[in-house]
């Protein structure tokens, strides 16, 4: 463990301390400056400034959940297309095109699967 290494690891220690500071300071600050009184709205659920109504213990339609899940999956998959844009056509455009088609094609299988398994049939909630 020579001096050179120690210097390197000193930076890691420094970053660690700064990182802890970033977490701890806002907590301490909010304890120090927050109002101490407890009113009617203090313990109310906070959701982006909207005033909550009703109870959260209601039944959600499960079919919506499946839609949301599939949407999320494809939403994330689209992100993978952005790096392709940067590399596309750099040296051999036909190969890039074929690779893109393979990628999107495999994703299409997921839609076919969901479709065949009846995910897209909206099931009415009964009861």
């Amino acid at each position, binding site marked *: 463990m020579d001096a050179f*290494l120690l210097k390197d*690891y000193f930076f890691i220690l420094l970053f660690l301390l700064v990182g802890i500071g970033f977490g701890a300071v806002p907590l301490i600050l909010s304890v120090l400056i927050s109002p101490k009184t407890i009113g009617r709205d203090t313990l109310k659920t906070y959701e982006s400034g909207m005033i909550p109504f009703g109870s959260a213990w209601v039944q959600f339609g499960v079919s919506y959940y499946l839609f949301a899940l599939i949407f999320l999956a494809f939403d994330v998959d689209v992100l993978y297309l952005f790096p392709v844009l940067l590399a596309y056509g750099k040296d051999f455009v036909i190969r890039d095109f074929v690779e893109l088609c393979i990628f999107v094609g495999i994703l299409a*299988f997921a839609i*076919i*699967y969901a479709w*065949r*398994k009846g995910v897209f049939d909206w099931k009415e909630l009964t009861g």
Partner: protein
Amino acid sequence: MLNQVILFLPELFFLFMALVLFGLTVASGEPKPRRDYHTALVLSAIGAVITLGSIGAEGHLFFKAYRLDLFSQLFKCFLGFGLFLVICISSKLDGIAERHHPEFYLFLTTSTLGMMLLVSAVELITLFVALELSSYSLYILVPMRKGSDHDSEAGIKFFFIGAMASATMLFGMSYIYGVCHTTYLAEIMTTLPQLIHTPGAVVGMVLTLCGLFFKLAVFPFHNWAPDVYEGGANQVVAFVATVSKMAGMAILIRLVALTGGDSTYLMNVLIILAIVGMTLGNLVAIKQKDFKRLLAYSSIAHAGYVLLGILSMSEIGYASVIYYALAYLILNVACFMVLVTMSEKGQNVKIDDFSGLYKRAPLLAVTLLLGVFGLAGLPPTGGFTGKFLIFIAAIEKGYLWLVIFAMVNVTISLYYYIGVVKAAYLNPPAEGSEPIRISIPLRLLNYALIIVILWLGLYPSTLFDQAKIAAEAVLAVL
């Protein structure tokens, strides 16, 4: 171009097989389990033959991120045959709902495909993607079991511990990239041995290995094994216990070979993990009543033995691990074949259920005897030869005390392995139990497994020579 296609043929074939099975998953009409089974069986048999035929292939693909050498091709062949064997014992797939059978075969295939990519990957990102492909398929397979409460628990535990291990591995890879400035193993291999004494490289290496420790159920990442073994359907567990373990061993060899072999830090970590893993696995296995749980703890112990071969960091050490991997595959398939045949409705098998197996099905009892004795490491089975080779490699490197420790562990493990044999041979059959009918294909499979177990035990030289050449190929990754 055509040449490259031929090099990539095994992977392409398994991709094709996955596509065919995908077609079956979306086929309309009533579920047809026999059709699914026969399709998967025929395709996997062809796949196994193709992997066998591609053993001599050598070359690079995909901008040198993918390398074919004797090491990768040998493991691909093992994986191909492993998949074939697992599908062979899936003819009575009662643990999984019939409408999910095509998915079962599909994900077995994609997982095997991922592992095949894994053993050939010589670039960190490729390696990670291949590892994830194989793991994700398993995450889906484990909770697929029907009508049991344990499967979701097992699936969730498996997934969370797996995700944790993957994240740790990715973090470790970022360190290795930071230290070596490249993701190509060939270049890492030239720079890492000089840097392996710096803490950054050691931390990176150990964290990277964590992802594989999860796959192999090495000590700190072992907690999933008992629950997954107990909760998953028997055939799925057979796959996890054999094929998946084998891929883990292969890639562990690849990565440890990168360090060049004289890192005391890394050695110490591996030694500690091996010792704790062996002891924990063997001691806890003694108490198990469920055969699959017992195999789970024994797999934790076996991961310890494998580490022993790996930390020799020599050609012989790696070669012995390759040999051990094959022996372990065959022995476990033998045990799971008996288990699957015993379990009439896809339920778990308790050790007491083996009572009087020698009367109910003498052939199964012999296979079980050889499989279990092989896992215990008794001659003349493949397990004995595998352990023997590993211990020799460790002694050559001066780890005599470690080998003695492992020997003590092997002796402890004899106790619970012999408990299984005792139930099968000495206990009388339970009241009202009938002889187990064994179909002719299953009978042939039994004979084949018995012959291979004995062959691995008695004539190791042919295969071990190949394993040595394969180990050379790993060490000469440039």
